[in-house]
């Protein structure tokens, strides 16, 4: 097997829902041994989340869970059992990295805070992610990505100027944070390897996600201005928007920010002249001043054409244009196919399912997704006996006491 950058790195992973598992999926894809700690008594939210193959729900059947937990092992431990703490301290000796995204104080409540973990493993990197960060009056406020988009200020700038705001799709901030998180975890691992000293990382999803609106925050703190909702328009371009194409719910995004883009569009749309050639549209200033009429004319043109045909024609004229890919289109997108964006894994209950690979290629040490998400408790015995080295007696005793549930 090819070398991976995180070969030999052990991750004890308490993360749940999306933001944590997305983070540790990168680590697993690039070679780390990631062991997810779950509870059979209180399975995580995602295990009961659609989609399900054939519409049949089941604790091991969620395609949502399966996608984010590829390349990980799964063990079950009842963290409220009195013997769980000692077992976890033993696993913390094995781990290089412990990850968790519980409400702050949860790990401490189990006697597994950073001080206690680093007492058994001084080089340990512990990564804690929470909605609001540790400390402060709101550290225990529960939350999750879909509503956090609103607190971060993203919902307020998503929507049409004449309508109420709408949320950016999905648990959006959950997909901003993991990239920052991986960089920070590996920076901490690097320091731990250099100095032998562990560290506890405290990531506030709110604070991290604010870096995706940082210029808007500066516009407020420096200029006292709050940007509103612009639909799809942009102060630096016109036409700049999404235009209907032939077919049902088919659209093409076009962005003319330079005069060269506009001239390219004219060559494609009206090679023999027409209303878009009006003097009113000759300059960006003119196009911005008459943008409603401009958008109407562009939409009139695009509506008669196939979106892919238009995209290719405009791109040949050096005009930024891109079709609106829906989820099915993504699987057919020639560029994503070329990159091998989706990978299919064979899951014992779900069957073959698609999960997305990392958005980067490492030339020397590529990642790979090789194993499907674990069934609940699938690796409990294998991990504790074969990797941690528990004796028969120790294992049977934990099992018999109900610790491994």
């Amino acid at each position, binding site marked *: 097997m090819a070398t991976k950058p995180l070969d030999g790195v052990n991750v004890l992973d308490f993360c749940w829902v999306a933001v944590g598992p997305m983070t540790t999926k990168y680590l697993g894809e690039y070679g780390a041994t990631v062991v997810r700690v779950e509870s059979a008594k209180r399975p995580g939210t995602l295990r009961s989340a659609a989609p399900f193959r054939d519409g049949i729900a089941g604790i091991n059947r969620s395609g949502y869970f399966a996608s984010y937990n590829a390349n990980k092992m799964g063990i079950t431990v009842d963290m409220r059992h009195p013997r769980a703490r000692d077992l976890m301290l033993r696993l913390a000796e094995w781990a290089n990295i412990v990850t968790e995204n519980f409400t702050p104080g949860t790990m401490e409540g189990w006697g597994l805070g950073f001080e206690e973990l680093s007492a058994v493993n001084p080089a340990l990197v512990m990564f804690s992610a929470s909605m609001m960060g540790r400390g402060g009056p709101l550290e225990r406020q529960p939350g999750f990505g879909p509503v956090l988009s609103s607190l971060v200020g993203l919902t307020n700038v998503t929507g049409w100027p004449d309508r109420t705001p709408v949320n950016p799709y999905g648990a959006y901030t959950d997909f901003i944070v993991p990239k920052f998180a991986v960089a920070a975890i590996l920076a901490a691992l690097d320091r731990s390897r250099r100095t032998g000293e562990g560290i506890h990382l405290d990531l506030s999803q709110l604070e991290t996600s604010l870096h995706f609106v940082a210029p808007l925050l500066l516009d407020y703190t420096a200029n006292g201005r709050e940007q509103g909702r612009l639909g799809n328009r942009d102060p630096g371009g016109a036409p700049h928007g999404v235009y209907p194409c032939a077919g049902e719910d088919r659209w093409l995004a076009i962005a003319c920010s330079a005069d060269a883009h506009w001239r390219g569009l004219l060559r494609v749309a009206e090679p023999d002249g027409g209303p878009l050639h009006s003097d009113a549209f000759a300059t960006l200033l003119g196009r911005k001043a008459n943008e409603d009429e401009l958008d109407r004319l562009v939409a009139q043109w695009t509506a008669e054409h196939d979106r892919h045909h238009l995209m290719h024609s405009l791109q040949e004229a050096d005009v930024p244009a891109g079709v609106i890919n829906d989820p099915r289109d993504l699987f057919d997108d020639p560029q994503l196919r070329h990159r091998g964006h989706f990978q299919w894994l064979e899951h014992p209950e779900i069957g073959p399912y698609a999960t997305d690979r990392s958005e980067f290629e490492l*030339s020397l040490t590529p990642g790979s997704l090789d194993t499907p998400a674990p069934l609940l408790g699938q690796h409990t015995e294998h991990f504790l006996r074969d990797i941690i080295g528990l004796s028969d007696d120790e294992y049977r005793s934990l099992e018999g006491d109900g610790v491994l549930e």
Partner: protein
Amino acid sequence: MSENPATTLLSPYRVLDLTDERGLLCGKILGDLGADVVQVEPPGGSSARQVGPFYGDDPSPAKSLYWWAYSANKRGITLNLEHSDGRALLERLVSSADFLVESYDPGYLESIGLGYSHLSAINPRLVMVSITAFGQDGPYAGYRAADITGMALGGFMHLTGDPDRAPLRPSFPHFYLHGSAAGAAAAMLAHTHRALTGEGQHVDVSCQQAVARTLAHAPQIWDIEGAILQRMGVYRQTSGDNRVRINWPCADGYVNYMLQGGGVAPSTRNLFQWMEEDGFDVTELQAFEWETMGYGRITPEVMDTVVGPMADFFLRHTREELTRGSVERRILLFPVATPSDLRQHPQLEARGYFASMEHPELGTAVDYPGAFIKSGDGAALAELRQRPPLVGEHNVEILGGELGLSSTELDSLRRTGVI
């Protein structure tokens, strides 16, 4: 007393940042983690300096707030890479650098003799990160990309917006930010390998893929159930015919509350309890078995039963009342916040998030968004320590002080337009 990690996480490492507005965030993240980041701009300044908004609405190169946001914690030099003397100086910097980040169109650096194979011959330990819209090769590699066309091709826009209008993007560009942040993660993966083996490598980031990874389970819904999720305005489709409302008008603005069961059923029940105290009859609402309704499993019938009373309840209260009450009752509700809300947010205030940065060249100080990560003991890991550089601000310090060029040589480079 252990040494302060704020100055030690990535402090041994040097990053050469050749990116423009398409890649600045990658180096910013590494700089925030303590790396010594040197932004390399063309003479006259980066095109990112032309991206608004601007301080005092003055579109001059030192006043782009986009530049400020993503170039703090970097030093800056100018080098004309189309000039052989400029390339020679870059090669000298590469020989001792740990990372090089760039966001040029695929093939550009190769065309001026600075491709990965050339740079890695100079410094085999180099980790080079290339951030582009679609990746270094493939049928779209040469495509022109803007934020909106990238968000479209990444699949994000289909799922955002009102059902009766065109798909939407946020009114702030995110396409390249997603790829740039991924570039920082990838840089550290490559670094981890290099730290053990001494081997550098080339990292090829696709912003389209980075956006496609933000779609939660929408691709899996197609793959496993054969259904295509749709944008639904204030609602969100979760699976098949199932949808949940997440955006609600209140007395003085908007709040977000995403009705859920499963693991977050307690939040839902707490909200109904509050409604009951407010005089609503919630018998029917509480009777549903929320605990078994995991994500995507709330049916339209259930949703339609609860949405009316909930909408009435929210309209009776202000954002402030709803936000404060939700904290006390552990309800998953958030306001639709604006920058001024954030500047005054009690949690951000308590954690000292915003940090004042002196801009002596403007005779002022400005509050910046602070560290993206902290140490568990509350110490900063990622302090703001360097104001965004002016054009060529550190030419003398780096080209003179480090590479040993004399003031005569620097003057000559200025005259010939190399710096």
